[in-house]
């Protein structure tokens, strides 16, 4: 199978839509569901995941030729775990309220399938620069999905966005949106809509 050389733009963009880690690859769902109940949590998690993904991919790509095959998973795990620890410690030190609100989900980034998945599938097989772009694109797709969920859940469940009230008192909040069932159903719907759009795009491509 010949691999077509992707342009830098394509490498980046693929993470945002066609290979979106959440809606297409179904990775990292645990975290998206857990922290999308408020936009501010989503922003914090998005930044943390971006930090870990970019730096891990960078380092993995850098050492890809040196690390023997048998120990690569172990090494990748240590690298990823280190960056997750940094993100978690910094959050706990300088943003204690956020850190408490996020609970165990920032440390859980270490088992977020996106990070190890990208390290395995891409960073360990490509040069540093493409790996960075890939990481940024994947992070971007993740953050976009997370923010979309966050906006909808916070707005409908609390009348607010980022804590500022947007909808008036006339709107009776859909509290379920802030609770686990709302998260599951919302994500299911978003994936369904993204599938639907993808089908439509494919159909349009088939017709000349």
């Amino acid at each position, binding site marked *: 199978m010949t691999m077509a050389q992707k342009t830098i733009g394509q490498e980046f963009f693929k993470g945002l839509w066609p290979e979106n880690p959440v809606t297409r690859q179904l990775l990292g769902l645990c975290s998206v569901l857990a922290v999308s109940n408020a936009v501010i949590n989503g922003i914090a998690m998005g930044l943390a995941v971006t930090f870990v993904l970019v730096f891990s991919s960078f380092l993995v790509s850098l050492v890809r030729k040196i690390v023997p095959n048998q120990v690569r998973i172990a090494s990748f795990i240590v690298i990823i775990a280190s960056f997750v620890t940094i993100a978690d410690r910094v959050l706990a030190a300088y943003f204690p309220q956020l850190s408490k609100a996020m609970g165990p989900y920032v440390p859980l980034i270490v088992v977020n399938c996106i990070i190890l998945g990208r390290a395995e599938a891409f960073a360990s097989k490509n040069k540093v620069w493409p790996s960075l772009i890939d990481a940024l694109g994947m992070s971007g797709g993740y953050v976009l999905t997370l923010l979309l969920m966050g906006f909808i859940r916070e707005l409908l469940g609390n009348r607010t966005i980022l804590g500022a009230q947007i909808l008036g008192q006339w709107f009776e909040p859909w509290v379920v949106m802030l609770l686990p069932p709302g998260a599951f159903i919302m994500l299911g*719907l978003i994936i369904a809509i993204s599938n639907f759009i993808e089908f439509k795009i494919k159909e349009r491509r088939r017709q000349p």
Partner: protein
Amino acid sequence: MNLLIIFISAVLINNFVFYYFLGLCPYLGVSRKIGPSISMGMAVTFVLSLTAVSSWMINHWILIPYGLDYLQIVSFILVIAALVQLVEMFIRKVSPPLYQAMGIYLPLITTNCVIMGLALLAAMKNYNFLETVVFGVSAGIGFTLAIVLMAAIREQLELADVPRPLRGAAIALITAGIISLAFMGFSGIIK
């Protein structure tokens, strides 16, 4: 009494799948049939019990006494990965039929949020040794309950006419949401 609260909480009220959102990745893949789901659940419960014990020991015998709590994440994940390797090798040697039944799920379990989640939550809640073990086993039972329920429903869904965009993960998540809603009825049974 406290142990009973932990058990009921982990299985029903704060179910690892329906409340903590953990264990979804393999869940969406494996939970299509009841049989494999039960095997997966058993494997996870087994690994969870071992993880509960080892994470408690690491935390209370090494990390806290020497002030190394910044190494918690790294040490937990490495121990879990090693544990799963050992368990896989052990089962393969000792009982090939058991390996056939559940061994193949073990590599999937390493990056399963449930295991790491349990280690982290038990550490955050500051449980003592016995409480951690009960928490671990209960979490496994809760996880098994969750995926078996999902598998049962999904087996039925196979026969239904699901609209194309919803097929696969989307309908699975919506189903999980409805079950999660039902599980919320268990809140407050501990008074």
